[in-house]
């Protein structure tokens, strides 16, 4: 218990140093930045004296997130109504011309075609990679949501529909060829 408490204290010091570095008016304060990360790494090693490697990573990242939330909450800047005057300089989402046809096409690309391409790559990986059967199926499976999510983010951000369509169709064609060709050739 004492070890875990020590790790949490060291992690908190690391977060405090990072905060001081990143909130400095000019450039990030380098010694604080390096020191902050160093303290956090050390806190993981301290956790390792009490917990196994798998638990260190899981608990370390969970604790880091919750302690950072606490740090943010403790240093909240409370403002009055008078603060809301001035000119906004925040970045805005890109303004695009859109209609229902374009919105449908985007949805088809991001949800359907990106999904088809991602499943194709995952299945191709599961069929063709020179690994143990369980390893390639599970890793291929994990690739699907990761690639689908990435593809979705990209297609929704890219204003050029044709480019996204061509790339996704090409990726799908290649991946399904890799996945199904052995069966067809048999």
């Amino acid at each position, binding site marked *: 218990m004492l070890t875990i408490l020590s790790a949490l204290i060291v992690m908190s010091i690391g977060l405090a140093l990072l905060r001081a570095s990143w909130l400095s008016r000019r450039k990030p304060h380098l010694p604080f930045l390096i020191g902050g990360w160093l303290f956090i790494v050390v806190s993981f090693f301290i956790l390792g004296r009490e917990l196994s490697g798998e638990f260190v990573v899981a608990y370390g990242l969970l604790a880091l*997130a919750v302690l950072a939330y606490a740090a943010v909450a403790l240093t909240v800047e409370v*403002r009055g109504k008078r603060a809301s005057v001035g000119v906004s300089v925040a970045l805005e989402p890109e303004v695009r011309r859109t209609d229902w046809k374009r919105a449908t096409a985007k949805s088809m690309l991001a949800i359907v075609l990106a999904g088809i391409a991602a499943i194709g790559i995952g299945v191709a990986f599961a069929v063709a990679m020179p690994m143990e059967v369980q390893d390639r199926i599970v890793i291929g499976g994990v690739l699907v949501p990761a690639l689908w999510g990435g593809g979705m*983010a990209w297609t929704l951000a890219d204003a050029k529909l044709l480019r996204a369509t061509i790339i996704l169709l090409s990726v799908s064609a290649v991946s399904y060829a890799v996945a199904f060709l052995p069966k067809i050739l048999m």
Partner: protein
Amino acid sequence: MSLKPIAHDVARKRKRPLLSSKFVQAMLAGHSALGLAFAALIYIVCLTGTLSVFLPEFHRWEQPNAPLVTEPVSAKAITEAAWAAHGQALIDDASQDIFLSFPSAYNPRFVVNYFNSATRKDGEWVADGDGRLVMRVVAPFADFLGELHTQLHLPRTLGFFIVGLTGVALLSSLISGLLAHPRIFKDAFALRWGGSNRLQQADLHNRLGVWGLPFHFVVSLSGALLGLSTLIVGVLAMAAYNGDSDKAFAAIRGPQPIVTGQPGPIPEVGPMIADVLREKPDARLVSIHFQRIATSGQLVYVKMRTPGHLAFGNTYYFDGNGKRIGQGGLEDGGVGQQILGVLQPLHFGWFDGIAAKILYAVLGLALTIVTQSGVAIWLARRRDKGRPAERWERIWSGLVWGQPLALAITATAALFTGRALVLIYLAVTIADIVIAVSVSSASLVKKILQGLTAATLACVAGVHFYKWFAVASDPASYWIDAGLLVAAAIFLVLTFRTRRVTGPSYSLSRDAETAIAG
């Protein structure tokens, strides 16, 4: 030649941000569109997911008179339980597979399941330390909550797919949100509360999202994979297993029993456990799965957990004669095997005791707030631009604050009946939206629903305590009641809290306010 122009050029290049503003704006546009399209689904899945961390505790809360088993279950009691379950399964026309889940320090219940995939019948009992089936498991709210989170009470395949797709959308939002955040480090600790609503919501959204990113990434990836597994394996089966999904699943799950139809004796599990303990002396029994029990082709999966691993345990396969035929490698096998082992524990936060669950609840709630604030930012931006979407503000408020109310009313109903819970939940959700469109402002919708939720949570805790206090033997029952009362108090405080934020939002000159408020 002077070096000044070159130095100047280098300095200018250094100042150029890593992500151009055009790229960030494009990402923001995609992030915004995706977030709005899936907001309601992501919100419901995140909220129910946060509560699902405590599903085992809700099971205990709903049946606090069930026996608790604090000592390790003996081999004799395991055999007793297997025989008793087999007998009961025959009576219930559900004999095929039997699953024994053993008590642990975190969940001192000995639970017995059986099911038959052909008759589609099943049963679930709580057993005592001697392996006697004591009472059927009755946990309508926990079952309701679990199904809402995993399949939205839709038909299984469709529900899993939609929840999986929601996980992909969440994952995609995390990626685009990250790429749309050029000041990720600089603003990592900045939270400005009050003043501009949009800035407040943006700070909350970004701070909760950024620090919780590893957790949010893991739960959305694992959730998406769990939801989409049927689809992925279906395509894999077409490519490599002649369209047989069962065969493809078997490649992951391990050996499958042979359907012979011939009877066979139920094997003794004591020697199987001893066999594993010879190899892993500190392993602890987690569960035993009899597949095609009491037939000549039966198999027994013995799951045992070695300390230090996140997986529920490793699976050791035995044939009907008690001979070991392999193991799953879920704790120390290949990469894929280990991923398979940690998928569920990491998704639900069930890899350790209450500390892990509390951390998961905090971060799950953070993800729910990130979803809520994402839409709030969009609504605030519209208001700032002089185009307020008042009806949508009220509907979003009705959905966000109506869900805790719908779940609380469903939990109250579940104390009296296990039927029609889905209808009750749907009716309350629709009523919330009707209230939202009928009331004059979004903040009033919020206050009404927060107040009603506070009252309902206090009511469910009170009614539960009154119903069970004379017979409850499980302390988890009182802890959950206390938790519900704390939640009720929080909702009450929220109801009477006065807001300091204003409608239109404009940033001040501080450089940190160039942060993304979109």
